[in-house]
C-alpha cells in the first residue's frame, strides 16, 4: 500500500503466474524462447519471433534503465497518493521488452530518462509487484 490504496490485482493464470509470484523468491521472471532466445512480454505460450513452443519463464537480473516515465499527479481513484512516477523500464538482458512500473525510493524530481534502476518487489497478498529503485 505504498501509494495509499491497494494495487489493482492481476488474476493469476498459467501464463502470468511466474511473473507475479517470482518475487517471493526474489526473482524477476520473464518469458523466453528456448530455441531462438527471444524475450517475450507479456508472457505467452509461443515465441512471437520463431513460433517455437519451447518457451518458459526465466529469471533476469532485475537491472534495467528508465526508457521513459511520467510524474503522475492525477488521483485516478480515491485515496491514491500523488505525485508518483510511472515508468517504462528496459531490462538489461532484454532491451527490446519493457515493464511498466513505479519508480520508488526517491523524490519524483530525481527521476530521469536513462537512469539505471533495479527491481524492488512490493508484496500485497501473494502478488509480488516488481517496482524499481534507482541504483546508488
Amino acid at each position, binding site marked *: 500500500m505504498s501509494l495509499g490504496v491497494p494495487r489493482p490485482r492481476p488474476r493469476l493464470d498459467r501464463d502470468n503466474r511466474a511473473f507475479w509470484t517470482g518475487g517471493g523468491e526474489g526473482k524477476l521472471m520473464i518469458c523466453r524462447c528456448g530455441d531462438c532466445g527471444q524475450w517475450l512480454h507479456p508472457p505467452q505460450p509461443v515465441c512471437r519471433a520463431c513460433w517455437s513452443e519451447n518457451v518458459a519463464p526465466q529469471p533476469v537480473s532485475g537491472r534495467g534503465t528508465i526508457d*521513459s*516515465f*511520467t510524474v*503522475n499527479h492525477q488521483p485516478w481513484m480515491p485515496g491514491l497518493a500523488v*505525485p508518483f512516477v*510511472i515508468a517504462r523500464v528496459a531490462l538489461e538482458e532484454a532491451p527490446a521488452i519493457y515493464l511498466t512500473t*513505479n519508480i520508488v525510493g526517491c523524490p519524483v524530481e530525481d527521476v*530521469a530518462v536513462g537512469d539505471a534502476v533495479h527491481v524492488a518487489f512490493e508484496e500485497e497478498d501473494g502478488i509480488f509487484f516488481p517496482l524499481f529503485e534507482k541504483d546508488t
Partner: protein
Amino acid sequence: MARGEAYITGIGMSEVGVRLDRHPLLLTLDAVREALADAGLKPEQIDGVATYPGKMPSFLGFSPVSSDDVIEALGLSTRWHLGGAEMTAQLGAISAAAMAVKAGRARHVLCFRTVYEAAAMANPTDYPPPRRTELTGASQWTAPFFAISAATWVAQYATRHMARYGMTREQLSEIALNAHRNAARNPRALVKEPLSAEKYFFARMISSPFCLYDCDRFTDASTVVIVSAGEALDEVTAPPIRIAATAGSVERYSWDQAEWPGSYPTGKALWERCDYGPDDIDVAQFYDGFAFHPITWLEGLGVCGIGEGHRFIEGGTRIALDGELPLNTGGGQLGAGRLHGFGFAHESVVQLRGEGGARQVPGSPRVAVATSGGGPMAAALLLTRES
C-alpha cells in the same frame, strides 16, 4: 465521378455537451438525421452501417450505441454492417466502409461514433461503471502500477520525445492553444474561449508533461459520416468528397511494448497508396486526444522529419488557420470535444466544402488528412475535393 471509388456524401453531428440528458440513441438519431438531410438521402437508401468500437457492455459510456442497435432502433434494412474494437483505430470503421462500397457490398454506409462518457459517469444507476475485479488481459501489465488512464501511457511517449529530441512544454503548448483558438470560432465546439499561455502554464498537471489542457475531456455527442459508392453519387445532393486513400496499423497491442507510435508506419503507408504527398495537404485534422499525438502525425506523414514535429509547431503560426498547414480547424478534441476520431473526418469535409464559416481556411482547400488513434494504434484518411 469514378466508379469503384468511395466518397463521403453526408455529415452530421448531434449536440456536443457534457452530462447531456438526451438518450445516446437519440443523440445518434440527431446526427443521422442531419447527415441524411445533408446528403439528400432517405433512411431506406442506407444499406450499410459501421462503427467503432461497437458493443462494449462493461464500458457503456465509452460505447453506448452499437451498429446492431442503430439498425434495430431505426428500422434500417442493411446488406453490410460492422462494429468492433479490433481494428486500426477509430477511423478504421470509415476505411472499412470505403472498402465495402468499393466492393459493391453497399451503396450508402452510415458510419457513426457515439460517446457518452460524461453523462454515464454522472448517472451510475443507468450506466454502472465497470466492476473492479481482478485484472486480466492487457490491463494487468499497467493498472497494478496505477497507469490506469491513457494519459499516463501517452505521457511516457511524450517524455521520450523530450529526452531524445528536445521537445519543450512551450512547444507542446501550441497544440492546445491552437485548438482553443479554433474552437472559439466553431459554434458547435465544447470550448468557447481562446486559451492564454499564462492559463496553460498555470494549469494543474495531470501526468507530466501533460497538464489539464493537454488532455481531452469526456464528452457526450454523436458524429455521423455517410460513405457512398461512386456508382450511387447521382442519388446524393451534397458535393462529394473522395476517400482517396486509407491506411492504418497497430504496432503492438500492448501500448508499453511499442518502439514508435502507430502514426509512423501508417503515415508512410498512406502515401504509398496514392499520388499525393505531404506537401499536398491543405488542411490537417490530426487526432489530439492528448496534445502529443498531432506532433507524431506531422512526423509520421512526413510533413517534417522524425523528431522535428515540435519544432514545426513552434510559435503556432504554421498550424494556425492562415498558416501553411492549418491544424484541427474546428478545435480538435481538445477544443471541440472528445468525438473520438470521427470529428476529424467531419471537420475535413466541412473545410473541403468551404463551409467552415469563421474558421474556414483560406485558399479553397482540396486535400485533407484526417487521423485517429494514439500510441501504437493509428488510422488515416486522405480526403480530396475533385470539383
